[in-house]
């Protein structure tokens, strides 16, 4: 900054857009008064006394004062020496295919030591809502090789299916396993993976990187890392930057993109932090009233578009605070996403992997993606029957805990046996075990064979004939 060079000259020319001295600094928020008219959500460059540049965004603008949120935090800023430059455009991300195989920070700047990838397009990270009539209804089955997902909560290409987990449960293992094993039945379509880490620990990021390395798929992965020790405000942008790249890859480049976002709970914490600082009226548990709309802005950026080849499948991970599924974060997520995979601490304690709770888990798009010509004709009824029977197992277990297992009727004992087989053989599998959909379904019938046929109301007589009595039994 000592010598006057061309850049300085240009900067001086733009002086009307740059302000030195702010009137208030409060947490990540900076207030500046008496400016020219500044646009809502405009991008801001904030330069501190030492000349370091941080990025920010306009949160509130009026003819008197402008509130700017600084993504990298306000640590070390001074009131008189802070300079703010208003860029006159929203935050954009330069995107290109060359971003696959690279690691970025939470705002999309490379941190792997490599050069900045040349941008093909500059896109607004906030995206635009997809016109509902332009959407293609997702119905392509993705085989994850995990029985409890493929058989009971089928993942569909273009779906948003979150994992509701808790601290200490193997959600990262499951997400990594899905990313490794996901394939379209019959086809060999590979997925590009966009990974957004929000406030997770370094080890978690390392776990994912290693998992991608082991399968030599790192070249197909773009990572956006805003780790636990990065400023929390940055996390507001991280998933948006990741989804902006995903949209470019899917809709411009025609790729099938799997977006893994972890941990959504941390994202919501950051939103709450900002909302509280701005003195907004809170709704439940201090979260802002617009949490639903804000989450929807992220989750709705998935799906397929009519006439375009690509797709975005989202696998958000969130840890339920205190394992409480009615907490606002999982609750609002469940209202937006197309189902949920819910983890159960008790099953984890019993050594079952993946510890997916059978009953609260659900895939809403499953109904149109399974059955004849997609998975197998017996799949819809089989899944429904397994759910019904497993639900009864829970009743029997409750009863057994009161009157003792010996007092159960013979039929109820058969149900217990079914439940045991279902959890130990059907749900439980190794982290590197990749089961075909046929294996999964046959295993389901094997479980049902623990029950007498007249108990199976949800399957047809023909299905009983073929699969219960028939070839699966050989």
């Amino acid at each position, binding site marked *: 900054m000592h010598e006057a060079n061309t850049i300085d000259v240009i900067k001086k020319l733009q002086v009307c857009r740059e302000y030195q001295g702010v009137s208030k600094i409060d947490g990540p928020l900076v207030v500046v008064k008496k400016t020219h008219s500044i646009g809502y959500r405009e991008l801001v460059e904030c330069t501190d006394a030492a000349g370091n540049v941080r990025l920010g965004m306009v949160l509130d603008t009026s003819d008197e004062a402008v509130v700017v949120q600084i993504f990298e935090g306000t640590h070390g800023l001074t009131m008189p020496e802070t300079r703010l430059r208003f860029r006159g455009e929203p935050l954009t991300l330069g995107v290109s295919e060359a971003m696959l195989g690279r690691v970025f920070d939470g705002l999309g700047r490379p941190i792997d030591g490599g050069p900045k990838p040349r941008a093909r397009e500059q896109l607004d990270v906030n995206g635009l809502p997809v016109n*509902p*009539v332009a959407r293609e209804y997702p119905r392509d089955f993705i085989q994850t090789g995990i029985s409890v997902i493929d058989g009971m909560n089928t993942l569909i290409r273009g779906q948003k299916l979150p994992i509701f987990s808790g601290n200490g449960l193997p959600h990262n293992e499951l997400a990594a396993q899905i990313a490794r094993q996901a394939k379209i039945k019959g086809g060999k379509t590979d997925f590009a993976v966009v990974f957004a880490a929000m406030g997770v620990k370094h080890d978690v990021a390392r776990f994912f990187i290693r998992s991608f390395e082991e399968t030599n798929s790192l070249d197909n992965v773009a990572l956006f890392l805003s780790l636990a020790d990065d400023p929390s405000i940055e996390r507001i942008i991280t998933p948006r930057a990741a989804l902006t790249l995903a949209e470019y890859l899917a809709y411009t480049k025609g790729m099938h993109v799997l977006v893994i976002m972890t941990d959504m709970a941390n994202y919501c914490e950051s939103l709450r932090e900002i909302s509280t600082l701005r003195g907004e*009226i809170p709704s*439940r548990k201090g979260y802002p009233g617009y949490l639903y709309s804000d989450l929807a802005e992220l989750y709705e950026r998935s799906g397929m578009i009519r006439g375009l080849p690509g797709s975005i499948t989202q696998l958000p991970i969130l840890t339920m605070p205190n394992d409480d599924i009615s907490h606002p974060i999982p609750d609002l997520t*469940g209202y937006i996403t197309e189902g949920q995979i819910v983890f159960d601490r008790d099953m984890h304690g019993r050594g079952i992997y993946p510890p997916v709770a059978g009953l609260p888990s659900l895939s809403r798009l499953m109904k149109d993606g399974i059955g004849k010509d997609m998975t197998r004709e017996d799949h819809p009824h089989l899944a429904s029957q397994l759910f*019904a029977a497993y639900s009864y197992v829970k009743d029997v277990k409750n*009863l057994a805990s*009161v009157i003792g297992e010996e007092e159960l*009727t013979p039929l109820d004992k058969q149900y217990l046996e079914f439940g045991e087989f279902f959890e130990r053989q059907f749900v439980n599998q190794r982290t590197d075990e990749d089961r075909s959909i046929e294996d999964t379904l046959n295993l389901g019938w094997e479980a049902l064979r623990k029950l007498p046929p007249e108990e199976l*109301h949800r399957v047809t007589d023909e299905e009983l004939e073929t699969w219960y009595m028939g070839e699966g039994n050989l």
Partner: protein
Amino acid sequence: MDKRIIGTIQRINGPVITASGITDARMFELVYVSDDLLVGEVIKLSGSSAVIQVYEDTTGLKPGSPIYGSGMPLSLALGPGLIGSIYDGIQRPLEVLRAYSGHFIKRGIAAKALASDKKWHFVPAVQKGIDLHGGAIIGTVQETSRIVHKIIVSPDISGRLLSIVPEGDYSVEEPIAVIENSQQKKEITMTQYWPIRIPRPVRARRALEIPLITGQRVIDTLFPLAKGGTVAIPGGFGTGKTMTQHAIAKWCDADIIVYIGCGERGNEMTDVLTEFPKLVDPRSGKSLMERTILIANTSNMPVSAREASIYTGVTMAEYFRDQGYHVAVMADSTSRWAEALRELSGRMEEMPAEEGFPAYLATRIAEFYERAGYMDTLSGTEGSVSIIGAVSPPGGDFSEPVTQHTRRFVRCFWGLDRNLANARHYPAISWLDSYSEYLEDISAWWKNSVAESWADDRREIMDLLRRETRLLQVVKLVGPDALPDSQRFILDVCDLFKTAFLQQNAFDDIDRYSTPQKQYNMLKVILTYWQRGSSAIKRGVSLVELKRMKVVQEIIKMKYTIKDDNPQEFTKLIAALERGIERLESMYA
């Protein structure tokens, strides 16, 4: 558009902007903000400033930009071309927007709600020289193969008909008639405009006596809804609110369906858009899309347009009601609408009441549901608007404000139960929490149209369900074996009733819809099993033997095997049941 500047932007906070230098803005006036012409509505006036909610994303708006007034409140264009269309919350046709801006919705696009180039075949129904009152029918247009669109005079216009065009093809913008009132001549077209927040006038409200048949057994038989009635469907996520709404939209016997996707998933609207045109209405044999209007304001679309979408939908419904149709409005979900109110209220820094919701939440909910009803319309016909509102209580907790306030203003309540949904018992409508206040009003219809004893039979099965609940509490403590066969039989019959009757498979070609007659026959079969079975148990027949009868399996599958047009199959089934029980009884005689 008239370029009347009514003020300039002072402050922008999300979808809410404050304007200063206001000259002659009116409350609820439609305005255009900045030179991008974003659509907005004046919601507060104070001195020379105004608060405006903007129906589009406000990114990039700057203080100092002008605001243009339109001189009229936010209104809908009503006329031929509505049916089969999909609109956003402020009646912008989404198909047209797609042609303008591609796969994503960009800002500041103006599009006509009704296509102006399309010609409709208009048939006049009146002759010139007569006196017309507001709401009178002056002609018809065959809009779809099943809907005759009646062209009515806007309720606020009346006078002498000076001229009317002959039968022929006209667009919605061409004048078709001239009406003279106190020396003023007014040309009218097939389009009329009506503000979304004002209910359309009617001649009189009627009592609700006819059920809205949905084809869903748990609804029609246990908790029926009347035509012109209101119902709330509350349920946590994944309990099947949307599935229930879709099932009703597909199979109910309304003439027209207005489906409002308010703050919900984009793919759900796509599902309706791809599925409805393929489905055939069992009554008319026509495609379901030929009676459906969709309002889609998905969760990621601007929040203030979400607030408006509910009113947009119900105003369209009232317009068709005024033509003498029975309209069903599906609002999915009213909680998202309430949350939009909360967000806007918060941005305006209003004092919150419960859980951050504004204090006027209850008033707004009441105003919305009161727009339902069975009416004598101004055109001299009868029509109805029924409102079926989904509620999404946080955490599935029915004690939250939106559910509680909604309960005060609806007369029918279909509570969805998480445990039923988890067991994949669909529709997961709880028989313990739900109720219908229309029961008495519509019993007469069932009595006259289906069966004399309907009300008694329904009461009998409800009574069994209640007894089952009590018994289950005992079973929880001591196990079912401790009960005598006569009481275990109650559990058994209720299980059968749940499996064979209450559960209904929306994806099965036969089971997805049951006529009232079939519903009654199925109920009768199960009650026969109960009545005959319990007397057999008294005579010493064991429960195990009863359950082992082959006919029981046939009863379980009757919903899939017996078609609507085959009532004699039920007679056979009952006969087989009687024979089976008689055989058992004879062994103990």
